[in-house]
């Protein structure tokens, strides 16, 4: 049940911050209400069901990745040693990698080791893959976290405002801008930002990475442009989704009732309408977060950040198949955890969905 503890931490910023502006007292009660639901049987059942449902997905995904890696033309050994490698050298490497054993044995060995947290050794650096993942993941997570922060601060309010003024000139301008934002590839956006803020204006470092533990300020300076290049693109999506969800809930009858009861517009929008739109927004955020982790593959390459995406691209370049296999499974686990958290958060803010 550690999940529930995690969620309490998650629920705070996720739900509190958009509504934090007006009427904090009411939000406090909302938070208490949600906190009270944490231990409800419905939510617990949902969590258990989701975890159980995730198991076959993990198993299937691991089998898929396992077989995929063994589909390398000529086998991983030839992939690593090259087509001109001698037969004994290939046999030796195959033996070293355990590739001369039956597939089922190999898979069982890999799976049991993976469950114990051992994803094998990198072919290139001989380091444990788990260790390399543990080192590179925080960089990607920080990048995605900062990009998300940007979207929460900028895109969600913009989407709400667009929905409030649906059909107005402002709404149309925002829709055009966000439509353009969808079309600009994030790697091109990254390059533009580097050209403007790094090269032309010398405001921010254009490339590289400084660990947070070493120098927090420098770390953040290096992270601003990468996070912005992911955050801006994601904002285009979020503005549109928030606008659509809010426009829906603003046109509902209970919002009309709330207005008729004489509540202030701010309270109606931020406290009542936003709360109904929240499940939709949370689901969009789930997809956005997963998409962002995918986008780190390119963004980390552009900015030369030592994150998990960059590590994966490098590993593919040098044919480090055990690392590719391990990191890909780490990504699968990550996606499933994100989906689980989103489902639980949605259930938390909308118990009706949890009962289904």
């Amino acid at each position, binding site marked *: 049940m550690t999940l529930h503890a995690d969620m309490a931490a998650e629920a705070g910023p996720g739900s509190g911050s958009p509504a934090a502006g007006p009427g904090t007292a009411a939000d406090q009660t909302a938070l208490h209400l949600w906190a009270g639901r944490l231990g409800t049987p419905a939510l617990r059942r949902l969590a258990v069901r989701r975890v159980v449902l995730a198991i076959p*997905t993990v198993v299937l995904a691991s089998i898929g990745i396992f077989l995929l890696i063994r589909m390398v033309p000529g086998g991983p050994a030839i992939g690593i040693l090259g087509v001109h490698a001698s037969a004994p050298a290939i046999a030796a490497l195959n033996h070293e990698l355990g590739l001369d054993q039956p597939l089922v044995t190999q898979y069982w060995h890999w799976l049991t080791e993976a469950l114990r947290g051992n994803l094998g050794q990198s072919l290139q650096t001989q380091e444990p893959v788990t260790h390399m993942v543990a080192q590179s993941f925080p960089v990607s997570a920080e990048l995605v976290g900062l990009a998300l922060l940007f979207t929460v601060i900028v895109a969600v309010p913009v989407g709400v405002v667009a929905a409030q003024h649906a059909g107005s000139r402002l709404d149309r301008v925002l829709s055009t801008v966000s439509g353009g934002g*969808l079309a600009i590839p994030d790697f091109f956006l990254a390059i533009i930002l580097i050209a403007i803020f790094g090269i032309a204006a010398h405001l921010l470092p254009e490339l590289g990475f400084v660990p947070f533990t070493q120098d927090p300020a420098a770390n953040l300076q290096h992270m601003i442009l990468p996070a912005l290049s992911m955050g801006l693109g994601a904002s285009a999506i979020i503005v549109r989704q928030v606008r659509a969800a809010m426009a829906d809930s603003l046109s509902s009858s209970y919002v009309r009732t709330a207005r008729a009861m004489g509540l202030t517009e701010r309270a109606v929008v931020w406290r009542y309408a936003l709360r109904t739109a929240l499940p939709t927004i949370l689901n969009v955020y789930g997809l956005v977060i997963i998409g962002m982790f*995918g986008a780190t593959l390119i963004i980390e390459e552009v900015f030369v950040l030592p994150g998990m995406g960059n590590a994966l691209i490098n590993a593919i370049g040098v044919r480090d198949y055990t690392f590719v296999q391990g990191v890909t499974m780490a990504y699968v686990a990550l996606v499933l955890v994100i989906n689980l958290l989103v489902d639980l958060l949605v259930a938390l803010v909308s118990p009706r969905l949890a009962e289904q």
Partner: protein
Amino acid sequence: MRATEHEPQLAEPESAAPASRHPGRRPVRRRPPAGLVVSIVVLGGLLLAALLAPVLAPYNPLAQNLSHTKAPPSLAHLLGTDYYGRDVLSRLIWGGRSAYLGVLISLAVALVLGVPWGVAAGYWPRWTGAVLMRLADTLLAFPALVLAVVITGVLGPNLYTSMTSVGVVFAPVIARLARVGVLEVKDREFVLAARLSGCTKRVIMLRHVVPAPLGPVVVQATIFAGLAFIIEGGLSFLGLGVQPPAPSWGGDLAIAYQYILSSPGQVIAPGVLIAVVVLCVYRVGDALRARIAMPKLTEHRPETAGIMT
């Protein structure tokens, strides 16, 4: 079709009003909006340019001229020359071939895999469907780009492998859409009537069941087309797509980015080109979506689909 429930609301402001005013005449068709026309012209023009590249491109896209590198735009070289003295315009025209071909490959793979996948899952929802959808869930448990990159890495990086793997990544989404559409019609009266009147399974499938989800699938495909242009650029940018020195928009952007300190202007042409193409594809997709009148549930899809990058 379930779309009919929503069609009246959507169609009313445009076609119903003039039709009632002139009951005898066919409703006057409104001229398509300028943005849509421009988009179609841009996309068609670029496709034509790519097809006619051997005739249209003023220079050989691979010919280097090391005494004339990084030249600014001029009459001889309309978009200037790159770091190796190659004509940028010619490279972009030739690069259009791999962009369009790549998108075509990924869409073809996505549809050829995804539609039968979803139709089978919807038509036999019990066991086959459960297994097929679990498979889709599994594929969707990877960040799209991660899966595409890993498959490409295993098969060897080039345009065909990379865009085929992108198609594989798109397929489960198409399958889900197709399944929903089939599930909704398969027990409807017209399908039962066809079955009672002795139609063969094949006829029922092809004439009555498969067409049901095609609207949403086509709309989704246009969104994927835009996305595929971005991903093709991204994979070539990473060196996993078209291999240099062959011209490609993403690959040329990567080269321009390498030399951004000495000639920052070089990144503009390929980057803007990708953005413009994607914008046009999305514009066409929007128009299609409005015509096909997507049901409410999937109405918000276009934006969520964009998340896959």
